């Protein structure tokens, strides 16, 4: 059917080199590719977004992407109310023909590779996970990362710390916690957490590992290499452009809402960021592992709840 405009709603500014930026950039790219208008509603916070939704639709959006699980309830309701297809995150079960499609960022495959990478690179035999909150998609990657580490070398300890509830912007907290985890012996930090991850990066840059050597940071979703000071080992990068393009295509083809979307290593919508801090041989091994995953030889069962994260990291030590 005929569509000319899509809209994306992001909870924070689309310049965070993370979740929000990936979403907004992808929406722009996908729209441009399909020659569509795009309305970006960023920095919405997590308040009541119904007015925004209504307005975007009034302004002519033929597809509204709610780029945060927090928007789901409102998006579903208003999509229904105003009869406009919407895309939501992290609620696959809500799939509904012509109305709702879900795109769940299942980064687990990438995070698992990151875990392997960390296990290969650690000198102290301890790696850390620092998160600023426990939303499903982050839990998903935390679990996979820990499993990846253990798959590489069961002897390696994984330590886990949450900065605080809703501590997304708590950069100071991010640095403090990351420092503590490093001090506890970790020399690689797998960090997830919008604003606070800049604090973690900072910690890694300013705190030497317990063996006196360099500490490393593995980021998620975004690509911070443009601001790296030599400590960004890698990142589990999400590229949502293919997803949004597919949505647009399906919508035009009139079969929107018949399937959910996901990122995958196969089409590089999910990938491990290659930095020159990663030795070539290690990278080669990772490429091989990736191939196995794509080929289905290795499967990582996605888990989304905090409980299984905690279970896993406790089991580790």
């Amino acid at each position, binding site marked *: 059917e005929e569509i000319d405009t899509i809209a994306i709603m992001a909870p924070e500014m689309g310049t965070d080199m993370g979740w929000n930026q990936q979403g907004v950039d992808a929406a722009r790219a996908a729209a441009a590719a399909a020659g569509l208008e795009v309305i970006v509603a960023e920095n919405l916070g997590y308040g*009541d977004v119904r*007015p925004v939704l*209504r307005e975007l639709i009034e302004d002519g959006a033929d597809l509204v992407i709610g780029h945060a699980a*927090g928007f789901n309830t409102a998006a579903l309701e208003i999509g229904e109310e105003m009869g406009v297809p919407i895309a939501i995150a992290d*609620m696959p079960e809500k799939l509904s023909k012509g109305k709702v499609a879900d795109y769940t960022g299942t980064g687990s495959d990438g995070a698992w590779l990151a875990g392997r990478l960390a296990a290969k690179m650690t000198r102290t035999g301890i790696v850390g996970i620092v998160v600023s909150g426990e939303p*499903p998609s982050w839990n998903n990657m935390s679990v996979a990362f820990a499993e990846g580490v253990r798959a590489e070398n069961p002897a390696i300890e994984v330590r886990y710390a949450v900065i605080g509830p809703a501590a997304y912007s708590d950069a100071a907290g991010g640095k403090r916690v990351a420092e503590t985890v490093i001090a506890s012996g970790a020399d690689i930090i797998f960090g997830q957490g919008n604003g606070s991850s800049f604090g973690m990066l900072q910690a890694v840059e300013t705190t030497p590992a317990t063996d006196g050597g360099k500490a490393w940071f593995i980021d998620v979703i975004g690509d911070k290499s443009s601001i790296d000071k030599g400590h960004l080992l890698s990142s589990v990068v999400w590229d949502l452009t293919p997803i949004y393009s597919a949505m647009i295509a399906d919508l035009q083809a009139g079969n929107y809402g018949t399937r959910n979307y996901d990122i995958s290593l196969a089409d590089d919508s999910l990938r491990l960021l290659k930095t020159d801090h990663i030795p070539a041989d290690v990278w080669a091994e990772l490429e091989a592992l990736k191939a196995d995953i794509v080929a289905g030889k290795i499967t990582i069962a996605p888990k989304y709840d905090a409980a299984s994260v905690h279970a896993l990291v406790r089991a580790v030590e």
Partner: protein
Amino acid sequence: MSERFRTGAGRELAIQALFLIGPLLAVLILGGLILLALGANPFSYYAFVVERGMLRPSGLEATLTRMGPLLLIASGLIIAFRAGVWNLGGDGQFLLAAVMAAALAPLLHQAGWPVWLLLMAGLLTGAITGAAWAVLPALLRARQGLNEIITTLMMSFLGVSLANLLVKLAFLDPTTTTPQTRTLPVEARLPRLFDTTISSGLLIGLVVVILVHLMMTRTAFGLRLRVVGANPRAALHAGLAVPALTIAVFALSAGLVGLAGAVDVLGIQGNIRADWNPAYSLSVVPLVFLARLNGYGTIVYVFLFSALSIGAESAARRLGVPGYFSLVIVALMLITFALSDHFQKRRQRLSQI
């Protein structure tokens, strides 16, 4: 002195108008400068705010809907402040009440309760939860004269954390991975007014704030509260049951704030997500002060505030001005209105001489 006798009625009107328009003008100009600095066109921005916040039907409806909970919070604050009780714990009371209502209502709905009944139950739960969260500060103030600014602030921090905890551990919606409470279906929420999207929470808010205003100004109970607020020793001397009244104030105030939480959930949100905290009361506190704790004035300020936040949100989005800008506008509004209020009072005092 002498020019005072020369002031004609016309000039008087003009001056009153100035006190009203002046602050708005100042906000527009100051905000405009910032907008220019940000490389945005002030005029189109303001036009947008007005169009989206007040003129465009959907915008107006959003504005009015947002007013509901804010008015209830305001009512709670008016009671407290007029009775000399600094209830600054609104956020905790609001959130905790919202969570309890959000946890209860969907269950009752599944249990097949009629909508009106489950809504009643939900609202009541909210009010009771809010009041309950003020019991400690109330007792500490009534019994030990412990300053409530401290205790309500602390209870607020505690309330927010507890609310998160409840959502994450106790009231989790099993059908989804997102940490949030079960969702109350749209058809089971507070009815919308006519065929608009305005939630009847607005009506509740308006009725309550007017009732509160009348209670404080027209009833014996209200006067008792005001006496306690204005001069506790005089209240004791006049034989008022000060401790009991104090506790009543806390209960009423926090109860209404709690009701606001329930109205927000049952009328608008439908569920509560972990780590969600709109921190409404922080913005409502100054509004009721600007309205000099007058119910009708409060309605006006709350409307302005809601319209502004709705309009600014969308203007920000459409004109590439980050939404943060609306914070600045609200702040400017608070200060300029406070200033004009100040000069108005001063003028009245002078003119009495």
